[in-house]
């Protein structure tokens, strides 16, 4: 996979190599390699059971890996217990200490390290100001709303000045509106503090919004590691294509390749894609819905019939059927006037936007 090799730069701040873990006879993590630079925000994105939380717990020291190594800031921390790792964690349910006040929760990591009360008081006040909870210092954490609890959890994890911050699906308990606010808020806070962070999520939008880089995980492996634009526009595997964003996927057979361009015969007709597959190879073709034009301006064309048009506010979703019954999904700014259900039109998409994968892995990943 191109995942690990791409960025194992010499200046890796966190370096995970060959991390593996099985629970009983079930492998959960299959020798994962991952390097992260200082100050970077990397998301582990994948469905439940893909091993992302297991990897996070191994980095935090809360779980012992079966094999592999974790290095942080030049130090091998594979065998170091969690309280000596300098790795902060924001848990999914926040795990605030219910018997302590907001300020006491935030001060916990400082007092645990023997920082004097007078000294920690200033740090706690600064952090509570940073997360916008200065007025809540003496409140019990039980009365707080979900968003406030999360702010406390972030401030608490940042208080001891960890080298690395791990966030385990921190937004999953919040409603949609609040989630979007908190995502932007968290980005601001982390930028201000400059902490290196790993963020675990199953929500592709969250990962796209928050991350410098995304590691898409599936079945205990990293399928694709890259910047969000790359993950979305040039997904390395059919799994990444399906998991991040919507797409239209059709199977086809390569009819010939020349100069890095393969011609693929599909039920829609013949389309071109940038690749050099051998003639006769079974492949899968994928296109992002917003990359398909509602006219014939691009090279790859197909005739389809409109099955449904859904207006979604900022955009519109158009569902088309091809002659053989295959579905094609298109996203446009609006439903074109004059186009009604049953109408037949020609769609087109650029060769550059045409994604091509070997057919076997496509079936396997589905």
């Amino acid at each position, binding site marked *: 996979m191109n995942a690990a090799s791409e960025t194992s730069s010499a200046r890796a701040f966190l370096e995970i190599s060959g991390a593996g873990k099985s629970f009983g006879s079930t492998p959960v993590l299959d020798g994962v390699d991952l390097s992260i630079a200082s100050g970077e925000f990397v998301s582990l994105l994948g469905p439940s059971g893909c091993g992302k939380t297991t990897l996070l717990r191994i980095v*935090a*020291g809360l779980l012992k890996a079966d094999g592999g190594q974790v290095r942080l800031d030049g130090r091998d921390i594979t065998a170091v217990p969690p309280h000596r790792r300098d790795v*902060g964690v924001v848990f999914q349910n926040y*795990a605030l*200490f*219910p018997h302590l006040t907001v300020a006491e929760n935030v001060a*916990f990591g400082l007092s*645990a390290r023997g920082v004097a009360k007078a000294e920690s008081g200033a740090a706690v006040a600064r952090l509570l100001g940073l997360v916008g909870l200065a007025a809540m210092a003496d409140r019990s954490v039980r009365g707080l709303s979900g968003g406030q609890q999360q702010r406390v959890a972030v401030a608490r994890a940042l208080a001891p000045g960890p080298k690395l911050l791990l966030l385990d699906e921190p937004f999953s308990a919040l409603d949609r509106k609040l989630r979007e606010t908190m995502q932007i808020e968290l980005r601001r806070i982390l930028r201000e503090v400059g902490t290196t962070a790993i963020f675990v999520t199953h929500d592709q939008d969250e990962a796209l919004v928050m991350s410098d880089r995304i590691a898409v995980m599936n079945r205990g492996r990293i399928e694709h590691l890259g910047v969000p634009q790359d993950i979305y526009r040039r997904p390395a595997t059919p799994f990444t294509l399906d998991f991040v964003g919507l797409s239209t996927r059709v199977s086809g057979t390569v009819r010939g390749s020349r100069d890095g361009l393969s011609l693929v015969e599909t039920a829609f007709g013949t389309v071109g894609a940038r690749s050099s597959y051998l003639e006769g190879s079974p492949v899968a073709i994928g296109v992002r819905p917003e990359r398909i034009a509602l006219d014939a301006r691009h090279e790859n064309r197909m005739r389809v019939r409109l099955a449904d048009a859904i207006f979604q506010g900022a955009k519109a979703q158009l569902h088309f059927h091809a002659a053989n019954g295959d579905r094609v999904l298109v996203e446009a700014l609006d439903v074109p006037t004059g186009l009604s259900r049953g109408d037949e039109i020609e769609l087109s998409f650029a060769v550059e936007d045409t994604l091509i994968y070997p057919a076997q892995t496509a079936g396997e990943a589905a």
Partner: protein
Amino acid sequence: MSVAARLRSIPAGAALTAPAILYLGLLYLVPLVWLLARSFSGPDGFTIEPYAALLSDGFTWQVIGNTLRIATLVTLLTLAVGYPAAIVLSRARGWMQVVLLVSIILPLSVGIVVKAFAWQIVLSRNGVVGQLLVASGLFEHAPQLLFTEAGLVVGAANVFLPFMILPIYSVLNLLDPRLPEAAATLGASPLYRFTRVTLPLTLPGIVAGGAFVFSMSVSMYVIPSLLIGDRFQTLATLTGRSFLFMRNEQLGSTTAVLLLAISVSVILAATALARRLGGMR
């Protein structure tokens, strides 16, 4: 009106508590009132003379002291043994948990008299403990254990141990395992995690277990009778002697009420404490 409808017309709370109220009222409250009345009645009607006489006697204070000291030591010993046991129990899974739970609960089905006799055998000079102490080289001769306060505390703690373990276990089970983990990632050593997170959050269980064990050991009768004998009197054994051997109902009633007052105040204080600590969760 159908039976169901009639049942529905009675407030649910009253209907559900009726059997308990009837049972306790007839078999517990009535004799208790009689006991209370007996302790306050002299030849000329109402009197507090029995209490005055009892409390002005130095021996009474010695007995109260014995009672409280033994009960406190038994409670502390069960806590020291029971808390780690509760932790192990709460971490055990599958068949291991079943084995541990059964081994804690099953001994409750063995009668106290049987257990006390068993401890007599264990603690006697040629009993297991004595033999072990000699074998370990710590003692040249097996020390006197039976008929000592230490023997009584050890024996009673064994009998009451489940009542300390189970409340702590149930609170530990409710404790979010992420909390000690969160403390660890914040740099807290295992000891710091225990004293600042686990212990304060399980205090309600400790208070409940403590109240159980204390109130049971403050009023135990059979165990001290068999493990320490008549030389050592507690309020409970004194009450028993007054009724059974001295045939002094007045004295027995008075010491019984005194004992009851102590037990009730311990339970009330523990409940108040548990509510305050429990309210923090």
